[in-house]
């Protein structure tokens, strides 16, 4: 996209709205671009860590997009990856410290995966593909949008895994006792990582059967 320095874009134009909502469905980072899968598999056993992870990634993507976009004209292109990493790493450390200070047990559950946001492909993808060529405000919105797109999938997967795997939502029992008495058993497979992959696979399946233009031509 070309930059036009003279015309001033309004803060909330239709274009900005499109940048925000595009990653929700047709350009979803997980189901369409298939980025950031590893954390989606790792932190979706329960809802709480999934939501915290989604928030962390949203914050880091948004602000790294913002910072890199502000710096984009001063970053020498040969060392841009290193600059991007420094910015992302700094943000991730801040997020990690905040999590440790305020939600310590969830931070422990997320363990290395907060640190691994640095290597999350969604981040690098957005920085390279979007923030390096766009103004700060659209970049920021793009970061938020992608964070939410990522979070939506994470929370959906987390919802089904926690509900079917341990019969709980947010750690509260939701499967009534009489079902257990009748012989219902929570599905142990849902807690194992393969089921996260299959759940994401099912989401991809449903999404593509609704949006047929997403189906890869073979």
């Amino acid at each position, binding site marked *: 996209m070309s930059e036009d320095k003279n015309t001033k874009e309004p803060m909330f134009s239709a274009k900005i709205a499109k940048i925000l909502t595009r990653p929700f469905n047709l350009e979803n980072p997980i189901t369409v671009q298939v980025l950031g899968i590893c954390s989606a598999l790792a932190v979706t056993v329960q809802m709480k860590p999934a939501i915290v992870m989604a928030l962390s990634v949203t914050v880091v993507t948004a602000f790294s997009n913002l910072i890199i976009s502000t710096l984009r004209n001063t970053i020498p292109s040969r060392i841009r990856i290193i600059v991007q990493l420094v910015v992302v790493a700094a943000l991730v450390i801040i997020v990690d410290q905040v999590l440790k200070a305020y939600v310590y047990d969830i931070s422990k559950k997320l363990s290395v995966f907060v640190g691994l946001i640095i290597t999350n492909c969604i981040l690098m993808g957005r920085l390279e593909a979007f923030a390096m060529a766009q103004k700060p405000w659209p970049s920021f919105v793009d970061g938020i949008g992608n964070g939410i797109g990522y979070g939506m999938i994470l929370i959906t997967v987390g919802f089904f895994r926690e509900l079917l795997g341990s019969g709980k939502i947010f750690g509260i029992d939701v499967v009534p006792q009489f079902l257990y008495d009748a012989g219902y058993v929570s*599905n142990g*497979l849902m807690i194992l990582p393969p089921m996260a992959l299959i759940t994401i696979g099912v989401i991809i399946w449903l999404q593509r059967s609704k949006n047929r233009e997403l189906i890869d031509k073979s």
Partner: protein
Amino acid sequence: MKALRKFLDNIKPHVQPGGKFEKFHSTFDAFETFLFVPDTVTHKGSHIRDAIDLKRTMSVVVIALIPALLFGMYNVGYWHFASLGKEVTFMQTFIFGFFKVLPLVIVSYVSGLGVEFIFAQIRGHEVNEGFLVSGMLIPLVMPVDVPLWMVAVATIFAVTIGKEAFGGTGMNIFNPALLARAFIFFAYPAKITGDYIWTAGLSGGTGIVDGFSGATPLGLASAGQMDKIPAINELLLGFIPGSIGETSKIAILIGAVILLVTGIGSWRIMLSGLLGGLIMTLIFNAAGANAYMELSPMTQILMGSFLFGIVFMATDPVTAAQTKRGKWIYGFLVGMFAIMIRVFNPAYPEGTMLAILLMNAFAPLIDHYVIEANISKRLKRATKASNL
């Protein structure tokens, strides 16, 4: 028979394209071709159409499974009354087992075919017959006391994720029946492992004879109680606890003969699977590091579901390797891994299921390299010939 034909012919115009119930064409077609030999003829060019289509092929496999099923029913009753210490007649034993096994068969068929019919309607293609066999295999690889809803959930999962997601019959990479079992195995491990679930009514039952254990030969072996493993002839006849269809090796061998005579099961896979298992056991015998490794090859082969898996599951024409050489490699590795997993991993007393699923995943790769090797061999020969 004539009345049935007439009935179908009456419905037929309504479900053809353009008819009133066009939507149900695939459902109608499924029943029609199941009941009668389809009268489809080739319109263009000269093709040879065999009278045996997928449905007949599958029916033969189902027939081959009948001995194992019948024996399984009897065995269920046998162990139930043995655990209670009661003396009953042959018919009582069989009828008890029959009514224990029948619900499993019905649940498996209803849930599996339900998914198949739904997908056939949505996609507008004919109902695939592949499930005729899977639906019979699923109850045969279950312990008798498994809850019915688990069978239903596992079957729906296996057919949806294992088969329809890949495009239906002929496209699946994993054997649906084994996938259903693996699903229960990992999702509800308490209902498919241990000593108590193999005999009807043993867990939580009252009036159990003192000292009755109900442990399968494999359970005994992985617990290190080698002296308690039944003798070869008992393993062969099948009066041992285990999954419904796997216990009688004689019934399985009858099934194997049916499959081999009709040419539906691949003798290469069966033979190489057996060889793989034997060779692995002999290697273990030579190593002899523990009591499990020292078990005789005969016992190893006859224990558990090894033969059942090799005969009915590894030979699944869709998920097995397709090339002749590929079949040898595939079967051999299935046999080797089956024995290896059961000896090395105490968490999985039976390795056959995992071995076949693993090799299902590798079958396309094996075929790829077999074909590549053949191409390069022939290319070499061709270049040599042209250089002369």
